């Protein structure tokens, strides 16, 4: 059981770190503001979710609940925030 939990932690955290790498590569390689925003929010939030998943077996019940709440809050906040930022960027590009 604990071997399985450790395996879940390693796979989850490793995959999460990989998605953070992917997000950074996207930021470095993508050509304009909106695509970079896309790379950042999708990849990093997926990475955070995988890390949360990997940490769940080590966090206990109330700690695990908090982890899930944190991920839900980040999803909510960063999707709305990226929408707001994208509107500003879009308007700036149209006016040029």
């Amino acid at each position: 059981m604990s071997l399985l939990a450790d395996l879940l932690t390693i796979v989850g955290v490793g995959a999460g770190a990989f998605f953070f790498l992917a997000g950074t590569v996207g930021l470095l390689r993508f050509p304009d503001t909106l695509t970079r925003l896309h790379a950042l929010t999708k990849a990093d939030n997926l990475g955070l979710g995988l890390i949360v998943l990997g940490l769940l077996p080590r966090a206990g019940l109330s700690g695990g609940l908090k982890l899930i709440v944190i991920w839900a809050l980040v999803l909510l906040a960063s999707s709305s925030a990226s929408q707001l930022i994208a509107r500003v960027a879009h308007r700036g590009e149209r006016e040029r």
Partner: protein
Amino acid sequence: MSLLFDIVLSLIVVALAVRVIVAEDGFAAVVSFAAYGLLVALAWVRLYAADVSLTEVAISGGLAGMLLIGAASRLRAIDARAAAQRSGRGVRLFAALLSCGVAGGLGLAVLALPDPAPSLAEAAVANLPPTGVGNPVTAVLMAFRATDTLLETVVVVLALVGVWSLAPDRLWGGRPGAREHADPNGPLAFLARVLPPIGVVVAVYLLWAGASEPGGAFQGGAILAATWLLVIMAGLSDAPATHGHGLRWLLVAGPLLFLAVGFAGIWLADAFLAYPTDWAKALIVAVEVAKLLSVAAALGLLLLGPPRRIDTP
């Protein structure tokens, strides 16, 4: 392994600080500063100071970021003019030498700190039971060095009086900021409906946890203030008129209750700001609740700025 983390973190923090100074326009500097604040919160965790980290997150992640981003975009018009006044080479050389001297001296002092380090940790833990709280930082803030905390709540109110007094006479007592409007179906209004209940719960939780674990009135108050500002920015609620008696009583409730408990301590426990042993935890929690509300109101109003409009009946 954790040393690697510390070194990477320190290097990023210093690099961001340098960017704050050398960035080409004010907005870039302010964003670098906000990023720097969030990373410093990580550094506080590495220094085993979760209470400080919570304060840093609430203040630089929430309040200072909002304040400075608003200010930078309003001052953008004069950015270019200010950049034209860049200091001469002599001044820059002098400043570089001065800052290297100061930083080098402090760095040497850090490396030469006495060993074993002087510490009040033992004394703080030994005197924890009479206060009834389990978090030594809260005990220091509310009991061992309560004078500092009392004066600090007063300072926040004084800063607010300073901000309000910047308003022209005819606007005294009016509402701060412009009346905000937002698309009622847009993402901002959505966030302003979903986040405030969670923000209130987190603020109360931090206040309550502060008695035994990291957390406390300042952290909760700063989060409450940020939540309130979100509702105002989304146009769901208007900023309050600053002449309201209820609002003004709310602002001074924390310091007043703190003072009252402090004076009561003179004859209940033989010293100013001392707590009678049986009542210590109840009194501390009561003062913390009042402080939470006052700090939240004061910080929120500080960010809204001086009064700008009078209600026309």
